[in-house]
């Protein structure tokens, strides 16, 4: 085994991830190479330090606040969906009624009728375009999807 090969395998050796035959070759080389022993000792220090790194455990109060945040989001999720669906349905119905009334009313000028119709049509086009963009992004963005085990 060359020293270069040794260095590449040193991490896996310390992690206990080397197969038996490679581990034996590794240890044979280690027995005869001072430079590699020093290299391994340095790497061992780093991996041991890394393994000792632990995250702070939040206190009870912090955990309660954290859980409340998650719980509120869980509940609000349904609320936002219902709100969005309700708003879309109400706006669509309202727009339809406005157009219907305006077209029937002879007192309203044609220019105003055309203007309002164009305004509503523009809003619909923009909404559909945004919705389509969101759907396309969601479809191609692999990070937006959940993982399944």
């Amino acid at each position: 085994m060359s020293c270069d090969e040794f260095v590449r395998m040193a991490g896996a050796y310390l992690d206990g991830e080397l197969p038996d035959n490679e581990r034996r070759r590794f240890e044979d080389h280690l027995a005869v190479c001072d430079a590699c022993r020093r290299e391994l000792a340095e790497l061992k220090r780093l991996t041991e330090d890394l393994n000792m790194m632990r995250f702070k455990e939040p206190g009870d109060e912090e955990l309660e606040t954290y859980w409340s945040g998650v719980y509120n989001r869980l509940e609000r999720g349904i609320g936002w969906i219902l709100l969005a669906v309700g708003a879309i349905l109400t706006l669509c119905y309202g727009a339809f009624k406005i157009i219907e009334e305006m077209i029937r009313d002879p007192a309203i000028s044609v220019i105003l009728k055309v203007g309002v119709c164009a305004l509503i049509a523009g809003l619909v086009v923009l909404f559909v375009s945004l919705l389509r963009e969101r759907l396309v992004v969601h479809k191609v963005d692999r990070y937006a999807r959940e993982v399944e085990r």
Partner: protein
Amino acid sequence: MNENETALLQRCQAGDKDAFGPIVKKYAGRASGIACLLLGCPDEAGDASQEAFVRAWRNIRRFDTHSPFYPWYSAILRNVCKSRLRRRARRRTVALTEGHRDSSSNTDPVLLAERNERKDAIWRAVMRLSDRFREIILMKHFQDMSYKEIAAALDIPIGTVMSRLHSARRALRETLAGEGS
């Protein structure tokens, strides 16, 4: 995974939100720490890890309760953080165009359980790694994942895990040596 957690997760699958509380509380600290290191921003870590718990809840019926919860959750958390980083990168492009500096990074190791000079230096060095190296260091050392689990999570061969981890540790050592630690 202990029996208690399995039972809680089964209750979650039946729609019992209260059963999700102990699960969230058990992993909240680790989840926030990992999110902090992935995002490089302690302020955003809590929000991202909470978002990941919400996504986990919404998909809880797809979860196999015979498997451990944390690796599954950790993959969701990783996806949430990646999405945020991508959004941040887009915003940063706009901000830089407008002549602003990005102030979302904070390399202070505020979420470490114990702090000393060496640990603080390691934290800062981990923060300075590229996303790819930081991610694999987090998986191996902060989440105690095996090479096989890392390979599955990143969808790469075990040989690549070994070589990437080797490069990441080398980069880490160089950064630490540069700091004189």
